[in-house]
C-alpha cells in the first residue's frame, strides 16, 4: 500500500504542478507541452486505480492525437506574447467564476460519496472481479450491450462533426492539375503514343 501512496502523490503532484504551468507559462507551445505532462500523469493515476484500459486510451487518444493537433495549431500561430499578457486581468472575473463552479461541483461529488458511500454503487453496473474479468472486457460488455445506442449516437455525432469540417474546408478549384491514378494506370500505348512520320526538312 505504501508504494501505491508514494506513486499517487508523485503523479498527483506533477499533474497539479504542470496544470498550473499550463496557464502560467509564457510561451503557448510550452503550455501545450505541460498539458501533455498533465495527461501523462492522469494516465498514471488511472493505472493506480486499476483502470488500465482507460489509462492507455487516454494516452492514445488525448496525447497521441488531440494534443498533437493542439501543438500543430499552436506552433503555426503567430502570437504576440505582450498582447496576450495584457488582457489577462480583463478575463479574470470569468475565470474565477468558472473556478468556483468547478469547485462547487467537486464538493458536491466528494461530499456525496463521503455521506452515502453506497450511492455510487446503486446507479452503476456491478463491478466484476478484476482477477476474473479484465477491465477491457468488462467495459466492452457494458458498452456494447446496455449502452449500445448511446455508443452509436456518440459515433454519429463525431461523424457529423467530421463531415462539417470537410464541408467547411472543401473547395473545388478549377484549372489545377491533379494526379488521377486510375487514369494513369488505364493508359495504353495505343492512347498515349502517337507515331508520326516526319518528312525531312518540314518538322512535325
Amino acid at each position, binding site marked *: 500500500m505504501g*508504494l501505491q501512496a508514494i506513486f499517487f502523490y508523485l503523479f498527483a503532484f506533477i499533474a497539479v504542478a504542470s496544470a498550473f504551468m499550463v496557464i502560467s507559462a509564457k510561451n503557448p507551445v*510550452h503550455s501545450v*507541452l505541460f498539458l501533455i505532462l498533465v495527461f501523462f500523469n492522469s494516465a498514471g493515476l488511472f493505472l493506480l486505480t486499476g483502470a488500465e*484500459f482507460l489509462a492507455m486510451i487516454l*494516452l492514445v487518444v488525448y496525447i*497521441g492525437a488531440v494534443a*498533437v493537433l493542439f*501543438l500543430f495549431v499552436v*506552433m503555426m500561430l503567430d502570437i504576440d506574447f505582450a498582447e496576450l499578457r495584457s488582457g489577462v486581468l480583463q478575463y479574470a472575473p470569468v475565470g474565477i467564476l468558472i473556478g468556483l463552479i468547478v469547485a462547487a461541483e467537486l464538493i458536491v461529488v466528494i461530499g456525496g460519496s463521503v455521506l452515502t458511500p453506497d450511492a455510487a454503487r446503486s446507479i452503476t453496473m456491478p463491478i466484476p472481479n478484476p482477477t476474473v474479468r479484465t477491465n477491457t472486457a468488462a467495459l466492452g460488455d457494458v458498452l456494447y450491450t446496455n449502452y449500445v445506442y448511446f455508443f452509436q449516437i456518440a459515433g454519429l455525432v463525431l461523424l457529423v462533426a467530421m463531415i462539417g469540417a470537410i464541408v467547411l474546408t472543401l473547395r473545388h478549384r478549377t484549372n489545377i492539375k491533379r494526379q488521377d491514378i486510375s487514369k494513369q494506370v488505364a493508359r495504353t500505348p495505343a492512347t498515349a503514343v502517337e507515331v508520326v512520320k516526319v518528312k525531312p526538312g518540314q518538322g512535325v
Partner: protein
Amino acid sequence: MDSFFSIYVWPGLIMVAQSLLLLVCLLVFIAYILLADRKIWAAVQLRRGPNVVGPFGLFQSFADLLKFVFKEPIIPAGANKGVFLLAPLVSVTLALATWAVIPLNENWVIANINVGILYVFAISSLEVYGIIMSGWASNSKYPFLGALRSAAQMVSYEVSIGFVIVTVLLCVGSLNLTDIVYAQKDGLGTMVGLPNSFLDWHWLSLFPMFVIFFISGLAETNRPPFDLPEAESELVAGYMVEYSSAPYMMLMLGEYAAILLICSLTTILFLGGWLPPLDIAVLNWVPGIIWFVLKGSFVFFLFAMVKAFVPRYRYDQLMRLGWKVFLPLSLAMVIIAAFVLKLAGWA
C-alpha cells in the same frame, strides 16, 4: 524491516537488473542493425559499405558512437534551448520504454501486462513528439517543415496500424502480447494437417493485414520510401538539421529503436514470436529467443531492402496511400474478420 526488503527492494533490484540487461542487449543489437542497414544498402548498389573499422567493418557503429560523443554539441542561438535538448531525450526514452512489454521468449518479458499491445500502441504514438519538439525548437525552416510533415504522416498511418492490430486482437481475443503469440500455435496449418508450423501464424490467415502493417510500419518509423520528414534532397535532413554530436546520436538511436520495435511487433503479431517454424524435434530444441531474433532480423532485412530498392514517395501520394487505400482496406478487413469469426464460431 525484513518484509520490506523482500516485498519492495529485492523485486525492485531484480527488475532493474532485467531492464539493464535488456537495454544493453538492445543497444548492442541496434549498433549491428545500423551496420547491417548500411551493408545491405551498399551490397544492392554494388559497393562495399563500411569496411575499415575492425574485421568487415564490424566495429563501425562503435567508432561512430565515440565520434558523436566527443564532438561539440552546437545549440543554435535562436533555438528554444530547453525543448531543443529535451526532444532527443523524449524520442530515445519513449522508443526504449516500449520494450518493457515485448516478450522475447516464453516468460521472458519485463512487464507481462494485460493491455500490452495497447501500451505499445500508446507509447509509439507519443514518438511523434520527439520529432515535433525538435523541429519546432530548432527555430529554422527545414526542421519545422520536417516536423509538420512527420506529424501528419505518423498520425495518418497510426490509424491503419490501429485497425490491423484490432483485426489481430479479434482473432486472438486478448490484448496480452504473450497470449497473441500462443494463439498462433493453431490456425490454418493445423487445419491442413501441419500442426505447430509456420502455416499456423497470422501472416497467412491475415495476409493483407500483414502487408498493410509492414508498409504502415515503414511510414510510422519514417523509413524510406516514406522518409519525407528527413528527405535529404528537399529538407537537407529535416528535423535533424540543427542537431550535432550526442543529441543527434540520440535522435538516430530513437529512430532505430523504433524500427527494431516495429520489426519485433511484426514478429509477435504475424510471425509467431518465439515459436519454431516446424514441429520437428531439432527445431524445438533451439531456444525461443533465437527464433525471435531470426524472425525480427528477417523483417529488418526486408526494411533494409525496401530502403535500397524503392524511390521516395511524393507527399500527396503518401497521404493518398494512407487515407484512401489503407484505411478503407483495413476497415473492411476488420468487418470481414469479425463476420468470419462470428459465423464460423471461432470467436
